[in-house]
């Protein structure tokens, strides 16, 4: 049918991309764990926006994709011996980087076929 031909063409032409939710993550932690937490956030594709000190604690503001922080609560707890706390809220949708989106699409398609 003409319609299906049209959409196949459109598919290639319009350059479709995957968007993922980006969360605003605020981590409160004692000084000594700062380095570890920043490194960890980076490895989670996070972007550290800034730091503040609040009393004896440091507050790190970062933007991290939701996919990377679904189990952040126990991870942060074990990283900081329970001293770190965090809160998280939805910020916006952003494009999934190319090298990752391929994997995500494959994985989801596999799940859908199950």
């Amino acid at each position, binding site marked *: *049918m*003409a*319609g*299906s031909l*049209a*959409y*196949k*063409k*459109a*598919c290639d*032409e*319009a*350059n*479709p*991309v*995957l*968007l*993922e*939710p980006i969360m605003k993550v605020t981590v409160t932690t004692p000084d000594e764990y700062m380095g570890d937490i920043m490194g960890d956030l980076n490895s989670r594709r996070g972007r550290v926006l800034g730091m503040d000190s609040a009393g004896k604690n440091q507050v790190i503001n970062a933007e991290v994709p*939701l*996919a990377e922080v*679904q*189990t*952040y*609560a*126990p991870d942060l*707890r074990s990283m900081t*011996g*329970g*001293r770190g706390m*965090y*809160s*998280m809220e939805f910020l*916006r*949708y*952003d494009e*999934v980087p190319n090298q990752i*989106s391929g994997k*995500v*699409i494959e994985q*989801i*398609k596999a799940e*859908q076929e199950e």
Partner: protein
Amino acid sequence: MGHMNETLRNVALVAHGGAGKTSLAEIMINKAGMTTRIGRVEDGNTVMDFEPEELKRQASLSTGFFQLPWKKHTISLIDTPGDQNFISDAKLCMQAAETAMIVVDAVDGVKVQTEQVAEFASEYGLPCAIFINKLDRERADFTRAVDDAVQCLSPKPIILQLPIGAEADFNGIVDLIGMKAYQYDDSGNASEIDIPADMQDTVETERETLIENVAEADDALIERYLEGETISNQELRDTLKKGILSRTFAPVLCGSATHDIGIDLLMDFINTCLPSPLEMPPKQGVTPKDEPAERKPDPSEPFSGFVFKTVADPYAGRLTILKVVSGKLGGDGTFYNATKETRERYNQLLTIAGKEQKPATEAGPGSIVAMAKLKETKTGDTLCDEGNKILYTCATPMPILISFALESKATGDEDKIYISLSKLLEEDTSLKLERNAETKEILLSGLGQVHIESTIEKLKRKFNVEVILKTPKIPYRETIKKKVRVQGKHKKQSGGHGQYGDCWIVMEPLPRGTGFEFVDAIVGGVIPKQYIPAVEKGIVEACQKGPLIGAPCVDFRARWILAVTMRSTHRKWRSRWRVHWPIKKPAMKPIPFC
């Protein structure tokens, strides 16, 4: 109770998990003669913890309440959970106390959760006292525990008692105010002894420090002390009480809950040195018109109170637990719920003792009472006298940290999950249940994995609903990055009316977060108006499934630029301007793959 609330002491036992809060509560209950046997957490026969989930984990998951008589006073214990996963309950229930008794583990010292609950106490302006527990254990160290407390906790801890002996030899306590020493036998009976000779020097210096510290709470006293006057023990006790109330310091007591050492001294201390509800400063609130208002903890003031916990009791139904701030409540009657703006009636006032409830005839300022089967009233609501409305700000539950997707084991149980879970949610305000429209999953969020798991266990035990926990799917979305023009053609010739439609749509990306926009850009009004919404609806529905993984497609504009429909000359092809079919269908097609 009631008018006797002068002798009431609401004490919240707070600390990190495993510090011995429940054990301490059990031994106090036993000493007051309320139980014949001391409940032991290890044996699972405690009065305060009785839910199977708590017994299995040997930890409190929910706050326990018990009122016990001690030397003409009523000590009302609020045994909070210490585990991080259930800290929200501790936070809410601490509001009901006049004093926070911070239990410090002499082996482990002050852990994070203890710091956290101490912060809640300072948020509420709660006076604090510290009890150093487990001094009988191996590697227990009184001095280290005190140093730890001084470093991590405020108000400033000051030593009130010293232990005699250490670890397994720990068998007595020196009271630095009365300057007396007590030795305990195996069954917890105290006998007064002389202060051990080898401790004389330490006791002297510690008493000096104590007097200096206590005197800080009273300028007149500190002057007299500096001038070299001796200060009587009674004066010292009075000033101690004043300083505790003003949060100038937090006195440190010590002992062992499991070996019953120092518990009677602790209970005497609660009676004599901790504030009664009537001594608390007025509680601040607002009127419905948002003007500041306050209520003194006085039985003659109009009634006010707040709900800090709801329990689903298997026998009594829903129990609403509230604290009376001012005025009085009778055994039955009505109250005004200022938060919900409704009047509600209660049939029987109850007091809570472990898992049992006892009827109460009246309640005064400071009383912690329960009402059964209230319909409207929820945790966090302010209750008051209808003629004198007031609203208190209630502490908010801790923010949620982790989410799990629920999947029912038996198909078709989805509704049951919702109904039963919403009952558990009433009990635990730190849980959140929602359905994600995009991923079509039921999400249960809470403070931690154990929090969610224990909720699921309860769900199974109480409602016989079994679910599987899964990591939630990510609500991905899709969009396009390039402007394209697509053609959609629809032809139908076989059977019935023939149809032919052809339309052109321009699709272009929009900035993030703008969603989807539909523009009808057909010039000349060739398409009858009534069909346009149909076309738009077709596109909106279609873009719920994107080309890559079937996620909703967002942030683009679809501009409808050209539509051609044809009337066939053939007899069968009679459809004329059947735009809703010929146009809608092609419009639907290209979009999902845009």
